[in-house]
């Protein structure tokens, strides 16, 4: 089935009226996507550590059990850290949602196909790993209830069009990104 959703619109909708949401974005296109939706101190865009976005979300969700945590990452980044789905399945944090923006491509390296292009079903893997809710999304539906309210861990694999878009870059200074996130979240305790 041919994908019809546009990734930037999907991410913009996920982050609209974000309230107290804490966000981690995986290396590559999803880091540009969340920035295109509006840079925010409580967004942590990664420029490296490929494969660790979901684990960073887990650490954040365990440290902040009263806040909702959203990981937005790509299919290639998620494939590099599949074990983390099993690790999250053991901990079962209710406040964590992992969203994979799945264009079935490695967008930063020449649009080579990823495993999902051959039918590898990330949502089924997440379900088998104990995620409470897990599904493939192919249509334009409001997902904010899943992100903000429904008890997790939740997993959404959102099929999007493989398109090459202008880069929208967040700050690259990791110390700055870390400090501003902690200050916005923890205030003077940071």
């Amino acid at each position, binding site marked *: 089935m041919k994908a019809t959703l546009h990734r930037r619109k999907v991410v913009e909708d996920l982050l609209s009226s974000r309230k107290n949401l804490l966000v*981690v974005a995986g290396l590559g296109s999803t880091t540009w996507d969340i920035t295109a939706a509006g840079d925010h101190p409580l967004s942590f865009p990664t420029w*490296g550590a*490929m494969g*660790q976005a979901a*684990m960073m979300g887990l*650490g954040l969700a365990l*440290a902040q059990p009263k806040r909702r945590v959203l990981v937005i990452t790509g299919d290639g980044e998620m494939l590099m850290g599949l074990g983390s789905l099993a690790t999250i399945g053991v901990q079962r944090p209710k406040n964590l949602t992992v969203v994979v923006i799945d264009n079935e491509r490695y967008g930063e390296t020449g649009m080579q196909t990823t495993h999902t292009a051959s039918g590898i079903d990330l949502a089924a893997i997440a379900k088998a790993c104990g995620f409470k809710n897990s599904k493939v999304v192919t249509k334009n539906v409001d997902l904010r209830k899943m992100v903000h309210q429904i008890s997790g861990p939740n997993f959404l694999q959102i099929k999007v069009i493989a398109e090459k878009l202008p880069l929208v870059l967040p700050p690259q200074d*990791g110390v700055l990104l*870390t400090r501003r996130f902690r200050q916005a979240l923890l205030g003077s305790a940071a």
Partner: protein
Amino acid sequence: MQPWADDVHRELKRAGVSVVGYVPDAGHKRLIELCRADKGMRAVVLTTEEEGIGLAAGAWLGGAKSALLMQSSGVGNTVNVLGLLKTCGLPLTMIVTMRGEAGEFNSWQVPMGQGTQAAFETMGVKVTRASSAEEVAPLVASALKSETATAVLISQKVIGIKSFQDQTSQ
């Protein structure tokens, strides 16, 4: 059996560590049990050591201190993501039980054991080494206090595993 583990656990408590990532290891058996039994700590079993770096980074963003327990063989699995600690200035105390040193019975453990310290140092992680059981807890305490990326290596002679029988009976 691993009497140093109780002292290390006490130091983790004192420093306010609330998230402990680990990959199971015979040398860490006692410490893992203590952390799992501690209601003030979330012990997170990992499928591979690099997950522990991501976990620690997320926990730190959320205001929680963490520690990571692993065997030297797993250090190689973390190398690329160790860069995250340096790039973002993240503190993390990693407690590493050594294999591949004097008394090693499994030659396949030797290359990574011999390369462990260099791998950490290549990625900008400070390394300290406990050669006796008494040294472990004080080194962990100072690593925690320094709030830097630090690995405390526990020599194989402290762990005292000399055979497969030892390993399974730990």
